[in-house]
């Protein structure tokens, strides 16, 4: 069942927003709300153990918040923040495994995010690994010259990486011009909203809403 990325994004944001509306102390309600992403995890073709572990990597920040509650003697509140944080992150992880980041970005554009911003994000994603590989090569080159702790080498590396980035962007722009670029990038993936998407959205919103506001 392949849903329109916009439908998936709306449902995810609605779920996260609903979670954030639950006040501390309503641990039972929170636990019930957790059933939705757990159910999705069980039925999705994703590596379940890996996702459950990955969601825990982001918890240190939430641990700090929970620690504040613990210091104030409120264990239930600490558990609440940890659980809410964990299940939120898990939900996002599940969705990003089922829908590509590019599709999610495009969905954001269709839902109102400025196209200019989304195109910049796409270029960023395209060249992320290229520049990281460059930075890694520079780091290794510096290490080979015994310069692990040199401010000069570090600042020169940053400067060189920056200047190369500027040159690269000019080179890319020339390549765009050479193939007829006129200032705006063509939209390549038209999204088509189907009846299935309307149905999924309705079911999702009603389920989440009923669960949240009936208790």
């Amino acid at each position: 069942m392949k849903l329109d990325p916009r439908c998936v994004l709306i449902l995810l944001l609605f779920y996260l927003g609903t979670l954030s509306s639950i006040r501390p102390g309503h641990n039972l309600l929170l636990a019930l709300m957790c059933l939705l992403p757990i159910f999705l995890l069980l039925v999705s073709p994703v590596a379940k153990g890996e996702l459950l572990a990955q969601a825990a990597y982001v918890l240190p920040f939430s641990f700090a918040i929970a620690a504040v509650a613990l210091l104030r003697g409120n264990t239930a509140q600490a558990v609440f923040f940890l659980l809410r944080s964990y299940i939120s992150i898990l939900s996002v992880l599940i969705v990003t495994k089922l829908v590509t980041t590019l599709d999610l970005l495009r969905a954001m554009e269709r839902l109102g995010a400025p196209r200019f911003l989304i195109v910049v994000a796409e270029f960023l994603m395209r060249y992320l690994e290229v520049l990281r590989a460059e930075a890694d090569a520079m780091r290794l080159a510096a290490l080979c010259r015994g310069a692990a702790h040199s401010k000069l080498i570090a600042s020169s590396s940053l400067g060189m990486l920056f200047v190369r980035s500027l040159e690269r962007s000019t080179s890319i722009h020339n390549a765009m011009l050479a193939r007829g670029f006129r200032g705006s990038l063509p939209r390549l993936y038209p999204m088509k909203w189907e009846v299935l998407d309307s149905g999924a959205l309705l079911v999702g919103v009603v389920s989440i809403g009923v669960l949240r506001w009936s208790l």
Partner: protein
Amino acid sequence: MIRVSNLCYEYADSGPVLRGVDFEQASQESVALLGANGSGKTTFALHLNGILQGRGEIEVGGIAVKPATLEAVRRKVGFVFQSAENQLFLPTVLEDVMFGLLNQGVAVEHAKARAMDLLERLHLEAYAERNPFHLSAGEKRRAALAGVVLMEPEVLILDEPTTFLDPPGIRELAALLNQQKMAKMIITHDATFALATTTRAVFFEKGKIIADGSTREIIERFDWV
């Protein structure tokens, strides 16, 4: 097809690079641009599609290259840049190959079909939805070439196309280029590749063309191996 008369150009920070270049190329003719690094080969080529605009007269396919005619000129001139990484700038290979066609006003579905067809012929169909970063050097070069060839230019310019390619990749590229019937201009240091893909060569030195003849004759004359 191409006519250049007294082309001069200088970069702001490095002085004159082209000092009065005259050049002509017929349609369907393949020419190699040879010469030392910094002799002006790439700078010259970048004038043919209007990326750089120096002093002198340039005509491509009967159209004078001027700011007002750049759109029409760029339909006739296909440029494959030295860095395939910078040429494949869209998030997926398929999008990138379609890019030129879409700028020409071709409908998305039609552009997609033609792009997939070409990718299949180049054995790149499996990479259609992948980030170009993950392709090998040879695959990137083929994908970059596909994106330009799909636009059906009348002149194909390639800047150091054999960079990072292994010998089988070079042979494959040469075979691919020889299948293309349009005029070709190949900037290269690879004498073997120049011999395999071109019949004529010009030699650049300090911003001028100092020799023009058959590829073999130029290579032998300047000991360019």
